[in-house]
């Protein structure tokens, strides 16, 4: 049975108000902006956003009033610094007060890995002596039963849904993903539901031709959306490059909350859907992001 479904239907079904959602699990690439924008259009509320860093997507959802809580290591605009909506939410409670659970990249990776492994926690030596440890009350410190040395115990995170971008998927959720994956595999395996936004839908045989490249077993995937350019303005290796100017524009247009509302209407609320967003971007701009120099992976023989 095919798991293909339109983005609006998938967001409506799997992202309910109050849901915990992992996005941006590959850090600055493969960020599912199209899914985040659909959440804003559907007026989702009280979401818990989970991710290592978040390159402006979390800031957008916070500014749009969709978010109650953020569990992350970093929230902002990677190339341009602060996340202005994140600041306003924490400093002024605007548009809503925001709960923030601080992590480091490693500790949130361990939390998701623990969820994926089905254990209550994983031990680590990061965070010792840090403010993250003293402020994040979910994390414990205990002496190691083997060495007696202090160890940080990071409790498992099991989000409601993980949303990943993949370069290609079959209709059953068997998908290939390449480039840096950050914590994507752990995020998908730790979550109750996994949604894939695929740049391309391919025959199952294409995926089965290279099983080592499959990011998460298909039976763990709940829905597949055919959504080319769903990552814009973030890059998707081999499909399109980063749209640096979009991040610069976002930085300019979020300094004041009024400016942000203008940006939000122009790029999210006033476009009907992801196709509308791409139409607004225009062919020339999308063309400019195309892969310029092809570099194909060396052939691999799986025959027997």
């Amino acid at each position, binding site marked *: 049975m095919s798991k293909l479904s339109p983005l609006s239907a998938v967001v409506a079904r799997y992202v309910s108000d109050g849901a915990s959602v992992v996005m941006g699990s590959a*850090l*600055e*690439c493969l960020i599912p902006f199209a899914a985040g924008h659909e959440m804003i259009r559907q007026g989702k509320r009280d979401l818990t956003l989970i991710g*290592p860093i978040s*390159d402006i997507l979390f800031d957008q959802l916070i500014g749009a009033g969709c978010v109650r809580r953020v569990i992350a*290591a*970093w*929230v*902002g605009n*990677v*190339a341009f*610094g*602060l*996340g202005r909506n*994140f*600041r306003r939410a*924490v*400093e002024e409670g605007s548009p809503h007060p925001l709960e*923030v659970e*601080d*992590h*480091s*990249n*490693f*500790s949130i*990776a*361990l939390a998701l*890995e623990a969820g994926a492994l089905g254990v209550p926690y994983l031990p*680590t*030596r*990061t*965070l*010792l*002596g*840090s*403010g*993250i440890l003293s*402020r994040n009350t979910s994390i414990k410190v205990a002496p190691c039963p083997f060495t007696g*040395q*202090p*160890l940080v115990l990071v409790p498992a995170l099991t989000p409601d849904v993980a949303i990943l971008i993949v370069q290609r998927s079959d209709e059953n959720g068997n998908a290939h993903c*390449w*480039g*840096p*994956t*950050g*914590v*994507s*595999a*752990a995020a998908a395996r730790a979550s109750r539901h996994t949604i894939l936004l695929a740049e391309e839908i391919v025959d199952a045989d294409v995926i089965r031709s290279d099983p080592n490249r499959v990011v998460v077993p298909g039976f763990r995937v709940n829905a597949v959306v055919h959504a080319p350019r769903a990552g814009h303005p973030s*890059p998707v*290796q*081999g499909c399109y*490059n*980063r749209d*640096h100017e979009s*991040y610069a524009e976002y930085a300019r247009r979020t300094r004041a909350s009024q400016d942000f509302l203008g940006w939000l209407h122009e790029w999210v609320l006033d476009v009907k859907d992801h196709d509308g967003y791409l139409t607004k971007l225009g062919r020339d701009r999308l063309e400019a992001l195309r*892969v310029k*120099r092809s*570099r194909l992976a060396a052939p691999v023989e799986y025959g027997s």
Partner: protein
Amino acid sequence: MEYTPQELMVVVAAREIRDGEVVFVGMRLPLLAFLLAKATHAPQAVGLFENGVIRDTPAAEFLATMSDGPNVTGAAWCGEMMEVMALLQSGRVDLGFIGGAQIDRFGNLNTSVTNDNGKITRLPGSGGACDIASLARRHIIIMNHERRRLVPRVDYVTSPGYGEGGDWRQTVGLRGGGPVAVITTLGLFRFDPTTKEMVLTSVHPGVMAEKVKAETGWPVRLAPTLSTTEAPTEAELQRIRSYDPQGFWTRSRQ
């Protein structure tokens, strides 16, 4: 040849990288420093990025982030963050670079929350900085030198330096490591081997020690022999400008 404080900081940072070292690179100035070191005295250095990229050759184009396509094309290894963090935690990363909004005299960094007599300012957070500060064999801090940034005590320890000084790191369970240098827009600091307090060891060309004192929020300790930072060579500057042609990291901002 004219140069910016950022270009000088890149050169000073590059000089800290030894050949063959495994370096947790990060972005911005540290990335430029890594590229410069590899092109000059450290051709065998290996660069780790927390997204899951390892490179032993420079990327072909300017990078706005570590996940930009050109940083992946031709990488030596590419995979999950967990594997890069595992290298860090198992003591296989020699050096890491981090930047900060606020630092104190023991090299503790804050990139999370500042509290200016009640006025809260929320910063982006740790990212991988706390992990580098906790687990790399040694790390180096790069930041702008302003009195509001160099404070007696940080409001939030995002990335631990030497805590309250002395053997604090051992006390809290951190195995060795810690900052070995703080490179600012005005000078270079090292750490007292015993007290672990920041000590100004060199001022950048044209900078007076008085200026450093004025821009530091605690009584700065000066090294017995305070030197002047060696200026960048023309060759070094040309390389840096080839890595950052628009001066995105080294001229237009910071």
